């Protein structure tokens, strides 16, 4: 699984990076690299069953009470 993930991400990098490199769009390359790296790290962490905080849970903690208040207010 880990190998598959790494291969997949390498393929993505291979498809996208060379063109950007040739055009010398360094800014693009940096942003892309950050997104790419985040994705890779996150995928690996998920594959290794590391405890990653879910953004859904985060939203729920903040906006759960808000929604509940709204629901009680009007519904």
């Amino acid at each position, binding site marked *: 699984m880990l190998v598959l993930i790494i291969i997949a*991400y390498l393929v993505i990098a291979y498809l996208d990076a060379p063109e950007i490199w040739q055009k010398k769009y360094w800014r693009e390359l940096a942003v892309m690299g950050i997104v790419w790296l985040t994705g890779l790290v*996150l995928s690996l962490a998920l594959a290794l069953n590391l405890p990653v905080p879910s953004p859904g849970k985060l939203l729920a903690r903040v906006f759960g009470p808000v*929604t509940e208040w709204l629901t009680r207010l009007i519904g």
Partner: protein
Amino acid sequence: MREEGYISPRQAAVLLWFAVLPTAILFLPSLLALRAHNDAWLAVIGATLAAGVVALIVYLLAMRFPHYTLFQYCELILGPVAGKMAAMVFVLAFFLLDAVVIREFSEFMVTAVMPETPGLFFSITIVAVAVYAARNGLEVLARCTDFILPLMVIFIAIVLLFATPEMSPRNLLPILENGFRPVLGGTLVAWSFLGQVVILATYGAFVNPPRALKASLTSGLLGIAFFLTLVTMGTIFVFGCCESARQTFAAYALARVVSLGQFFERIEALFLAIWVGGVFIKITLYLYVVALGLATVTGLKEYRALVTSLGALSVAVSHLLYQNVAEIRHDLLMVEPGWTLVWQLLLPLLLLIVAWLRGKRRTGI
């Protein structure tokens, strides 16, 4: 950053239809029946009115900044720092929404159709196609809809038409049994879907002429409301409110009861195929908007390079978001309304007010 192509107002409306309806049609009827019981369809109409406010804000902003995307005029209105932050909130929100849609899609496929296939497989395949489409730009996607829209409209019509023998319209009565409060509760839930019309603020910049946005917004929103009301009514007609609420995928259940004269039945596979087409458009559109937004915020010349990486990341995030369908449902009921209220209504409203106070406009480019 700008895109090279333009889309027609009609295509913008159709894209708007696809930006809301595919997932709404599958998840909303059940949730609405839970909240608003028999009056679920009224909740849709209520939410449409609320979404109309968003549409109005989007239109007024677009009139002040024609041919600018939401991410661009964030900076124009709020200044570079606050503007970038606001634009980043939009990017994150659209990204999260995209991940949610991907997860909803794969969860539905796994639950209802192919339980032995890992959900990840569905997310990866649809995102792979979406990445390919998003890299080709908005014009291509808009032309895709020309193919899928008739299929989807015809099929919704077929399901509703052929389910009529199973329907009993008296299930709708009594109207407003418990007053307006349950309806408003349902409106809140439906709102979080219908408020997604805010997406037109991003790709609306490529509509030519900008003034025609008014027509796209109105017709798109009315189209969404029309079909959503029909499907919600259909499920209530067929199942009554208790059973509609119990069915996790009420629209799919509706397609499953269609049985015409012993031979025209089991059409849910067809429903599925066409629905996947709709979800594909939705996922692609959001992926495109996220890439465009991120490129704008970071000041890139090209968004294309970001699409693939963003797609991969969204698959990972979608996998991370929820444990199961029950969590999605809980989220749609109890979290999304508050969150969407902030970024789909309050934030655009803030932008509009600030733009109006500061007298910012950028017309005549």
